[in-house]
């Protein structure tokens, strides 16, 4: 069986790569893709923890907590990511239509 830390290390690597990409790249679509990468790294971490944690956990109030929490979180992250992509790409399209260019460094109208 693969030890837990290997999954976590892969997730961490993907997350940092995504973070670097968000900071470094200027193309908004690529920045967006890097955000997706970070979300997926988090998903992987959630799933790995869910797989390796005991199937029944009891919290301080003596309640049995769901052993599915990790997978549920992944499902909701996926739903949020889908909604986010739809709106985000719509925003990029709208900006492109307005200014005929997409470059995150040039989008500084909201700076005040």
């Amino acid at each position, binding site marked *: 069986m693969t030890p837990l830390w290997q999954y976590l290390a892969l997730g961490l690597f993907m997350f940092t790569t995504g973070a670097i990409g968000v900071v470094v790249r200027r193309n908004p679509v690529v920045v967006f893709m890097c955000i997706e990468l970070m979300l997926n790294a988090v998903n992987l971490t959630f799933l790995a923890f869910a797989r*390796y*944690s005991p199937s029944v956990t009891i919290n301080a109030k003596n309640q049995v907590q769901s052993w599915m929490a990790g*997978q549920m979180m992944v499902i909701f992250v996926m739903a949020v990511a889908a909604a986010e992509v739809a*709106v985000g790409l*719509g925003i990029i399209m709208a900006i492109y239509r307005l200014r005929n260019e997409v470059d995150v460094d040039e989008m500084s109208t909201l700076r005040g």
Partner: protein
Amino acid sequence: MSNQILFWLMAAVAAMGAVGVVAFNNPVRSALSLVVNFFVLAFIYFSLNAQLLGITQILVYTGAIMVLFLFVIMLLNLGAPQALQEKRDIKPLLGLIVGLGLFGILLSQVVMPLNFVTRSMARDDFGTPQAVGKTLFTNYVWPFEIASVLLLVGIVGSILLAKRRI
């Protein structure tokens, strides 16, 4: 042992895909390497016995979200070589250093202390559609409904943004 080899193989491909997203200058290539990453990630999910989420990963990310990304890249013609040249300055280097620092710190302080966990303690039906579905529609039914409202908001918002005249 074969498990380990398989995992490292998949992890290597996934990691290369992740690097490719940031390193490729051409957005289409970035998107493609992200597709590779997501596709392999699905198989890593399978190796964690999360079948339903693995296939959902392919269905949602590889099959829908990345197609949307490619669609937008091509629609804006960002793939053309002259479209958007990245600047060559000190920013990438700084980002790389900070990112590597983050990776090193988190790896040594958070991930490696957990290296004693080697045995899975999950139930046998971990990740089967039956188990996931049952939990999703009983304990998590309110978050599920809220997620569906969120998706509806997403639909309305994207139509509002993309339409020239309402």
